[in-house]
């Protein structure tokens, strides 16, 4: 729960409504980037392979000697490959993040999107800025560190200078770990951040089904569950919402345990076989009471308050 709270932020809409949002975790961001890089590299490879497959005929009749093939055609293909690589590399991020979802395929899979840190409109310039910086803070450092490693193994170059430069680059690479909002250099320069994009479906209303709808009457036994003031003032909002979650998701065995706990707490003798109806009735009546109090400005956060 502590880790979850660290990612929670509040964004104020122009209507003055405070919306809770969650910063994308560093792990899922790294995962999204890996997915994106895999997709980019995969599509570049596929493109090259397709080109090779299509243009393989160039080498026919030349005894497989590339030098003998038509120079013009070869040149054309080389240009095509160089330009395609460039366009795919930068276009992939730009076009997708400028789109209405504000996320690349990798980010979408991991439920992330980018947003303006100010809470305002996400400007195209910001998207471009954050993507241009990605090269310097991520790919150059990785390549550089690899080169330094290889050089130090082979005893070439100036090791000290190499390590100083590698440390300098590592500073950029590790920047997301040094600030609260997990901003990378590109996010700082562009004024953006990466947030979770929730997709929640509207759940059913609980008060229109089962015992909650029929004023506490159980469909199984026909018994009517009525709780008094004293029994309902045992619990607060936190317990109510935990119970709601149980009613929506939990398995019957779990409900039995909850049923037993509540009965013990309010001093009833737990029966068996009709736990769901009991809990639905208890939920509806507890919620009616707490919401009634809420309208008079009285709130009870949990059972201890």
């Amino acid at each position, binding site marked *: 729960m502590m880790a979850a709270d660290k990612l929670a932020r509040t964004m104020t*809409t*122009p*209507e003055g*409504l405070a*919306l809770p949002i969650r910063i994308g975790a560093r792990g899922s961001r790294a995962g999204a980037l890996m997915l994106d890089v895999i997709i980019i590299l995969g599509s570049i490879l596929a493109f090259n392979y397709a080109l090779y497959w299509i243009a393989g005929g160039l080498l026919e009749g030349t005894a497989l000697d590339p030098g003998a093939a038509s*120079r013009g055609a070869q*040149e*054309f293909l*080389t*240009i095509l490959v*160089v330009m395609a690589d460039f366009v795919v590399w930068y276009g992939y991020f*730009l*076009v997708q993040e*400028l789109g*209405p*979802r*504000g996320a690349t395929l990798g980010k979408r899979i991991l439920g992330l*999107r980018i*947003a303006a*840190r100010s809470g*305002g*409109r*996400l*400007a*195209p*310039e*910001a998207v*471009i*800025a954050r993507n*241009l*910086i990605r*090269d*310097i803070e991520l790919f*150059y450092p990785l390549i550089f560190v690899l080169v330094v490693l290889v050089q130090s193994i082979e005893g070439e170059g100036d090791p000290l200078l190499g390590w100083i430069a590698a440390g300098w680059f590592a500073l950029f690479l590790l920047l997301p770990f040094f600030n609260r909002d997990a901003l990378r*250099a590109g996010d*700082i*320069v*562009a*004024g953006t951040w990466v947030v979770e*994009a*929730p*997709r*929640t*479906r*509207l*759940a059913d*209303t609980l*008060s*229109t089904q089962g015992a909650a*709808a029929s*004023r506490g009457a159980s469909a199984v036994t026909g018994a009517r569950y009525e709780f008094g003031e004293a029994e309902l003032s045992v619990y607060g909002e936190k317990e109510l919402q935990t119970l*709601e979650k149980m009613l*929506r*998701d939990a398995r019957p065995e779990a409900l039995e345990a909850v049923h037993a706990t509540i009965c013990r707490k309010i001093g009833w003798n737990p029966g068996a076989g009709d736990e769901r109806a009991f809990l639905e009735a208890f939920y*509806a009546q507890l*919620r*009616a009471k*707490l*919401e009634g109090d*809420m309208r008079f400005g009285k709130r009870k956060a949990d059972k201890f308050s």
Partner: protein
Amino acid sequence: MKAPVLSSWFGRGEIAAPPDIASATLRSDRFRLEREGEWRRLEGIVAAMERGGLRRIADEDILALPALYRTAASSLAVARETSLDAATLAYLEALVQRAWFQVYGPRRGFGGWLREFLLGGWSRAVREIWLDICIALFVMVAGALVGWLLVAQDEAWYYRLVPGGLADTRVPGASRQELARSLATEESAVGLSTFAAQLFSNNSAVCILAFALGFAFGIPSLMLMVHNMAVLGAMLWLFDGQGLLVELAAWLSVHGTTEIFGILLSGAAGLHIGRSMAFPGSRTVMEAASQAGQRGAVVMVGVVIMMVIAAFLEAFPRQLVDGTGNRFLIGGTMLAFWLAYFFLYRTAPTREGGEA
């Protein structure tokens, strides 16, 4: 009981009819059931917008979007004060957030942005960083001078400054013929287009590096520029020694006026970020960085376009067009074009639209 999870993957669109409002025993659930239809309509519109099919959405839906968004926002505000239904609250929070991203999302896609960029946005951004362009220009001229003076003092500096692969026959002590030959045209255009594509890829990467390094208070950008221009200064010294300075300048000017201008702009854009972070004025450092970064990004997209043009100029006209006069003519025309485009072509900024 809970429906299986799989249904949420495939069950797009099929929504069970909401229960009768009167059957709800809780006042907060009646509140929800009364408004649920509007929320679902908003969710449908937002989902369609996210899929990118703005044209496939009915006009009345588009018109209703701001009103529906505000209804949902006010429903959320009311629900927070009156309802303890955690699932509904979570749904509303997510819905308002999604709708917020669409209502206040980017107004235009990539195409629309590119149009505005070419028709004034680019030159405006360049004019806005004029001070940094002046500083970068000064640094570049100083870098070239330093390169020249260093090599003039001690020839050993030449080998340090100019990487071996690029220099080939162009080394101190080379004869006039050898140097003149390196400025001559190619026999034919064969191989030049590949050369152009690689030049473009390489030069754009250098420019993006110069821009991105500006993040560290602009100092690495300046160092990169000094180093690049020192190489140029060393070359100038070498050709001057054999009386070929004018010829070299003509040879360079064909693409150099575009390419060096592009490097100048990218260095200036990087410097702009660094300068804004070092001296943010009354803004916070983060605000200053993001404002400067966005302005710099616009300049950088332009620099990439300039690099495309420079690469073609470098590969074809420079290698095929002979004669000092002709070469100066091409280079001078390009320079005049860029200066006119950046500093004379002024269009009124199109308003990005106020609030939706």
